[in-house]
């Protein structure tokens, strides 16, 4: 009896569908991904069952970190430049055009306005070190107490530049209540009586 010859099959297999799928997913993730902006503080927000989304544009964010330091952020490149100039005029701090440009592409910040020119002339890595320096000197965060309230002027000038701005408070769960109360009362002084608390999502019980 003749032996039955098994056809020798090639060990390579067709990878085309897999590659198709891989590229499809790569394209999907590339298009949907949004990179988180580099923020000077990491904030762990509490969770709530609220379902409203925060608006993407026209938003002022007041960030309160776990130690109660206040940071500020608002969008719009041109608006940021004009707001910084107004703040500079008010507090008699001069900014060079280069510093103004750097401010307009910055995200959130938290320091007294006097520290601003020096901070803005630094590179990104140096800025991080500068925050640590400020923290040691106890000058990190925007002054927002009743004696010296720069936060009030930031909110005021930002809202003049764009009255459509909505205000969101993004606080760390560990921040003490008096700071939060101070921030809320500062907003109320600016006639912002409607604002949002940014929270994480949580399922309804």
């Amino acid at each position, binding site marked *: 009896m003749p032996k039955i010859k098994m056809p*020798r099959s*090639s*060990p*390579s*297999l067709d*990878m085309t569908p*897999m*590659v198709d799928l*891989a*590229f499809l*997913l*790569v394209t999907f*993730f*590339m298009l*949907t*991904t*949004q*990179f*988180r902006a580099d923020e000077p503080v990491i904030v762990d*927000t*509490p969770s*709530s*069952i*609220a*379902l*409203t*989304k*925060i608006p993407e544009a026209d938003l002022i964010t007041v960030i*309160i970190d776990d130690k109660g330091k206040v940071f500020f952020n608002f969008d719009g490149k041109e608006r940021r430049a004009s707001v910084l100039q107004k703040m500079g005029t008010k507090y008699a701090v001069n900014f060079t055009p280069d510093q103004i440009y750097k401010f307009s592409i910055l995200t959130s910040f938290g320091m007294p306005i006097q520290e601003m020119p020096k901070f803005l002339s630094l590179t990104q890595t140096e800025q991080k070190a500068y925050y640590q320096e400020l923290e040691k000197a106890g000058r990190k965060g925007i002054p927002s107490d009743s004696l010296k309230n720069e936060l009030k002027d930031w909110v005021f000038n930002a809202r003049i530049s764009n009255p459509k701005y909505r205000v*969101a408070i*993004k*606080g*760390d*769960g*560990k*921040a*003490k*209540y*008096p700071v*939060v*109360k101070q921030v*809320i*009362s500062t*907003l*109320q*002084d600016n*006639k912002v*009586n*409607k*604002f*949002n*608390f*940014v*929270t*994480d*999502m*949580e399922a*309804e*019980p």
Partner: protein
Amino acid sequence: MAELNTDDGGGGGKHGGKVKAKKSSTKIDMTPMVDLAFLLLTFFMLTTTFSKPQAMEINMPVKDKVEDPPKIPGNQTLTLLLSDKNRIYYYMGADDPNLPPTVEYTTFANNGIRKLLIDKNKEINKTYDKVESLKKEFLDGKIDEKKYKVEKNKVVGDKKALIVLIKADEQSNYKNLVDILDEMSICNIGRYAIVDITTSETDMIKNVVVQ
């Protein structure tokens, strides 16, 4: 998965004579491309964040109003005092110096504050049950969303409904505040306000015997 070269080296000596042109394979090695694709895929999958943060809407009263604060009927008012160690001290009625209210404390656990709020909200004007039945009707499709919202606002904003005053002290933190505001929406309480704590109330907290 590298392609293995399976052909045996072209025209051997057997046939002799004719020189056959080596037939090159039409397949190209896709391995590096696939490696790269998966590397990118992993990178984007890990860096992407889908869940956008949620926002909780807060309305505060206009600050510099000179008119007197509205008189609140004591028997439907629950005052919550947020303090340290995530404790909530609470009392019903007004803080009358002649007739000090009994203050007790609870926690943020499910059978703590939530049970208390739901019980109170059932007891006073049956708001909780009314909202729950409305919600059921809405989920069953008997009423549409617009009507549900209108009816719900009517029920929770009723003059006879429970009023909750939220007062946080120096020791409480932001999480406590957000949690208690969240409980308000969970327990269908529509009439609540964030108010400053008074000195008599901070004394109350001190005087409560902690077991």
